[in-house]
């Protein structure tokens, strides 16, 4: 495990990407790392593509991940995994939620949703870990925990232990949603080696 790293979160506006990146940042901060995180607000919402860059290490200057240097990509939607290929390198891990959300041109019937698009990543020897985070969220009984299930799956690729994440959930999530989010985290974490 590296002493510094770059985690890229991608998905569609409204999927809870900002909270996922926030929990991850808090876990890295609790481990004593310097952390910088960059988001884009405004137009990026309203169902458009959304990304958050998280960088951690002894001292972080740039808030942006460079092309070819994301160690982990946490993609909340299949197309939004493939879209960030230029950010990946051959040792990147890609945790991808197998949900499909149709972009407008596809919903309008002008284009088709590309089949087997993750092959573009696996063909380049990138480690792709598909997760049905929607099913996990359904199973724990709260559809809005898709993002925390994704954080759980991703946590397998970090030096930070799961107990740190659980403590972060304890201190950042509203009391009535804590238990269900912890369950989603654990289930997401377990899903990777299932």
């Amino acid at each position, binding site marked *: 495990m590296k002493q510094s790293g770059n985690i890229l979160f991608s998905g*569609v*506006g409204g999927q809870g990407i900002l909270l996922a990146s926030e929990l991850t*940042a*808090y876990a890295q*901060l*609790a481990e004593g790392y*310097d*952390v*910088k*995180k*960059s*988001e*884009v*607000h*405004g*137009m*990026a*919402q*309203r*169902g*458009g*593509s959304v990304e958050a860059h998280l960088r951690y290490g002894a001292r972080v*200057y*740039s*808030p*942006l991940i*460079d*092309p*070819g*240097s994301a160690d982990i990509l946490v993609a909340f939607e299949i*197309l*939004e995994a*493939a*879209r960030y*290929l*230029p950010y*990946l*390198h051959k040792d990147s891990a890609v945790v991808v939620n197998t949900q499909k959300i*149709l*972009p*407008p*041109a*596809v*919903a*309008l*019937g002008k*284009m088709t*949703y*590309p089949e087997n*698009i993750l092959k*573009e990543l696996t063909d*380049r020897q990138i480690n792709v870990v598909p997760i049905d985070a929607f099913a996990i969220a359904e199973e724990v009984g709260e559809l809005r925990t898709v993002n925390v299930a994704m954080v759980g799956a991703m946590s397998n690729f970090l030096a930070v232990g799961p107990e740190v994440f659980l*403590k*972060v959930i304890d*201190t*950042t999530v509203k009391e009535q949603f804590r238990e269900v989010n912890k369950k989603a985290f654990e289930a997401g974490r377990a899903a990777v080696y299932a």
Partner: protein
Amino acid sequence: MVFDNETKQWLSGNEAIAQGAWEAGITVASGYPGTPSTEIMGNFARYDDVYAEWAPNEKVGLEVAIGASFAGARALATMKHVGVNVAADPLFTAAYTGVRGGLVVLTADDPEMHSSQNEQDNRNYAFAAKLPMLEPSDPAEAKAMVGRAVELSEQLDTPVMLRITTRIAHVKGVVEKGERVAVPEPSIEKVPAKLVMLPGNARVRRREVEKRMATAREMAESLPENRVEKGTGPRGFIAAGTSYNYVKEAFPDAPVLKLGMVWPLPEKMIRTFAGSVEELIIVEELDPFLELHIKSMGIDCHGEDIIPNQGELNSFIVKTAVEPESAPEVFEPVELPMRPPNMCAGCPHRGLFYGLSKMKDVFVSGDIGCYTLGFLPPLSAMDACVCMGASISMAHGMAKALGEKGEGKLVAVIGDSTFMHSGLTGLLNTVYNNSYATVIILDNRITAMTGHQQNPASGKSLTGEPASAIDFEQLCSSLGVKRITVVNPHDVDATRKVLKQEIASPEPSVVISRAPCILLPEEVKRKKPTYYTNLDNCTGCTACVQMGCPAISWHPLTPEEAVEQGYREKQRGYAEITEVQCNGCGQCACVCKFDAITRREED
């Protein structure tokens, strides 16, 4: 919060600026929402013993801050980069009057235009208005620089500009907590020679401006925010703002002159640094601002000859611009369907733009807000958009240019908050100069695009207190508009009928398209029944698909599949509502002529 201990916090640049403003003893803040500046005001309002407000536009906001400063209070005005264009009038003359309480003018620039119509570089305003400008590189510096700006403002008797960019405003980082300084007591003090800018007084103040800038230039030489970071190698870099971060990542060992004050510049410091390196490279986003002024000192350097002058930078771009041979191979992007932002499912604007999309020979003069997305296919119902408030005046200008040829073909669309910002005067002009364009006010009861800020039409203040709400019908009537119609845009048929009739009318008319933003908390709470598709009845006519609602998707069929599913062989597909995404507006049911869309009645 996990990371909120005695000394440190995890804050965005905008949160840090709010904290910095509070610590620096700022008590009055005013601004207009605009990405990426918006969150500063909402955060500042949460502190004790401060006043924060949304002004109708940036000019008013800055004038409020100037007034507070004249009363001896410390004040802050916030705006996005283009907002400074609106506030430029008071800004240039406040440079002459100077201040009483410290006055900070925050500009949030948007390189790459993530959420803006241009990427102007507002460092040029500091030069043009003759004002000191500070520029932080991260949230921690952003907080500290508010304090420094207040200090310089009072010391030099001038407003001080604080410039941030998207990668400061919306970047989170670790920020040290601080204590609040003593807050000065406001009072009335009459100093007309300083504050009344008639020519006689202004000529005296003009000389003060030059004296003060000379002092500021001298102070810049020893300001801790300007510093040389020693290093090795033949190349030296000068950088400020987020560009500094990219230099530090790309060339960690190189000597760097980091500028925290980007105007006026520390000439001696720059000259000494330039003399200490073999090759000087200025790394900056957008305009070659530092480069031009450094070159005008007679110093040879690289800048926009190698560093791109458009869009954002990152350390990869900086590294490969300086050392092209170092460029590593990266994976090429895959061709994929784009995912642009879209109006939400249930958005009231959709019903209105659907009506406009059917009037192919009408020119739609647009404005700035969520509804600018009416430009996107399939609605494609906006033909121009320049700046806040321009829709109405542009439509009037077209009417005057076209004369009779334009009759029945000119429409302006403008949101409620944008109309309050700068649409009023345009409408006044339309009536006064006897035009015929139709003005549509998209009244969704909130400033939606920037994340639901209150405005003078919404009935609440920034802090959620009840406030006076403008009555658009009465307002337009008192401006002299005779034809005023209110429509519910969810009723697509009635809306189309009114649009046809009003656009055809040869006198100025106003259509108020009124329905609240479906994302407003009170709207979300009273969740309406959703609609579903009776697939048996769908003929594949695509009328509903043409509305571009994210809850409706098209499923293409081959002739065999069509027959298999009981459709006519010729039917090329069917449309279906994704009910979890449906917000129950019913617009699609209005346009379906085949009874294929039904409201799910509650059991």
